[in-house]
């Protein structure tokens, strides 16, 4: 255990923890808006395009982070334009962009005489080799993403919820759509060092999927997703560091698998909650067909009698073997 504490106190580990906290907050924040637009895979698409950006950085000797930011933003804007034009085969166009990005990246990395291992750092993350400058860039960019996602939440929510309504409300929806695309691109490159370009989308989408199992409002979904994302990225990093004494455990995949484990445990709870809510939804009030008493009723319905009590107008129906029993004087009516 003392070795573990020693490991955590090392500078590279502390840099990694800082990066994990900030990406864990930022990725689900923008991810919530992507999921709301039903574009959960957009992060994945941008990630593929960003591979080319990284490769250009390796080829030209410029910082791969910044070339990735630029190419990812260009890719995100291209995706947004294709989406806005509403081409029927928009998803095919997106697919072309993804594969082009990935293939271009691998090709250019080869031209740059860099090894596949170097590219792997970006594809699957290498949070423990992150430098001081990288940490600062990560923190600043992530903070910008979080501030915009939270500060402009009413506008971004309205635009994602209903574009036409937002437009007639006088919002510049194109500007907001481009803003979301750019923020998604920035987040992808921020998370690139943490979980890697190919797993980036998981950190943007999985915490959102988990939190919406249990939430009923947008605000809680957003807040819980950010909390879950941070928990997954910090927890995954600590877990992989702890396990690293036994085996080679990469932090990126650990983070993603931990986030998925969160979803797997929340999912049954969500199903149960939704089922319970549906069972207890009030029955519609319509004129009664006829007064029909139940047969001799051996059971006394009441609070906690074990039967689901459903509001029905001014009284309560108890659901009993597929019947609806409503108390009426000394007997029960079939409703």
């Amino acid at each position: 255990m003392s070795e573990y504490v020693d490991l955590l106190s090392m500078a590279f580990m502390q840099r990694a923890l800082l990066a994990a906290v900030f990406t864990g907050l930022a990725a689900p924040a923008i991810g919530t808006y992507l999921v709301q637009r039903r574009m959960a895979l957009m992060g994945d698409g941008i990630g593929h395009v960003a591979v080319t950006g990284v490769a250009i950085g390796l080829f030209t000797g410029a910082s791969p982070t910044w070339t990735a930011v630029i190419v990812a933003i260009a890719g995100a804007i291209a995706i947004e334009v294709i989406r806005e034009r509403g081409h029927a085969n928009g998803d095919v166009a997106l697919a072309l962009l993804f594969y082009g990005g990935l293939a271009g990246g691998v090709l250019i990395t080869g031209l740059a005489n860099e090894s596949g291992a170097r590219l792997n750092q970006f594809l699957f993350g290498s949070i423990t080799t992150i430098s001081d400058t990288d940490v600062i860039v990560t923190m600043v960019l992530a903070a910008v993403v979080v501030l915009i996602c939270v500060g402009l939440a009413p506008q971004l929510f309205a635009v994602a919820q209903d574009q036409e309504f937002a437009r007639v409300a006088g919002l510049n929806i194109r500007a907001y759509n481009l803003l979301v695309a750019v923020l998604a691109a920035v987040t992808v490159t921020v998370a690139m060092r943490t979980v890697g370009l190919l797993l980036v989308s998981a950190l943007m989408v999985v915490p959102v999927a988990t939190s919406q199992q249990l939430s009923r409002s947008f605000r809680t979904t957003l807040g819980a997703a950010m909390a879950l994302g941070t928990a997954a990225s910090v927890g995954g990093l600590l877990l992989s560091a702890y396990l690293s004494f036994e085996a080679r455990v990469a932090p990126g995949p650990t983070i993603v698998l931990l986030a998925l484990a969160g979803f797997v445990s929340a999912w049954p709870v969500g199903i149960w909650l939704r089922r319970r809510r549906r069972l207890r939804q009030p029955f519609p009030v319509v004129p009664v067909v006829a007064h029909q008493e139940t047969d001799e009723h051996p059971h006394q319905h009441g609070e906690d009698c074990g039967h689901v009590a459903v509001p029905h107008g001014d009284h309560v129906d108890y659901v009993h073997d597929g019947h609806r029993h409503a108390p009426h004087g000394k007997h029960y009516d079939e409703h």
Partner: protein
Amino acid sequence: MSSVVELENGAVSIAGRPILRHIDLTVRSGEFVALMGANGSGKSTLVRALTGLWPLTTGSLSLFGTPFGSFHDWQRVGFVPQRGGAASGVPASVWEVVASGRLTRRKLLRPLGRADRAAIADALDVVGLAHRARESVSSLSGGQQQRVLIARALAGEPDLFFLDEPTAGVDLPNQQVLADTLRTMSGRGATIVLVAHELGPMAPLIDRAVVMRDGRIAYDGSPLASEQVATAHLDGHHHHHHHEPDHHDHAPHVSSLLEGDR
């Protein structure tokens, strides 16, 4: 009375194909106008043109006396789009969806003020969903979701409402609630432009019916019974408001019938 919506000789083409032609429409303050017509007659397109969602190919549009190009007073306009429901990919509570209607009056990065909260509460009250404000919109029935969308428009406290088929696929009790809501809105002095295939319980509220047929206005005048809508272009009423030559030939009607509904 001042005119709230004024469209002169409006036309809309979609991908080069003329959809709306020769539309002259003036809606005066406080009027309750029903835009009617068969599917594909252009009534939804007309509302989308009036709200700026479709650009006009020709013609001039002004809202509240301001030419559309320089109109920025969007808090005066409330829009209820034609939608299957109010749900999206992430849960949102009824209150949150209605609160987004307040955006027309909110400044960037400012929290909701007391007046905002009061308007949201009032809008929820009018549509009778105040008791479900905290629930997720996706747990509501289709008719209730439609009421949420109307409350969202109401929350901005506009003077002019455009509603695109709010009663499509809504059961009768919910249609009744919608009609009561519209009565309240109209009673508060709002101008209402309602697109509807059938009026149902809203029929007594209408001041004026405009019937669209194949992208043109076929009738503009006092309210019609629903069976009259289909034949509105055949009787003499259509000379009521606009000036078309008397020799209204029947060839366009025949060809439009052959084309059928798009």
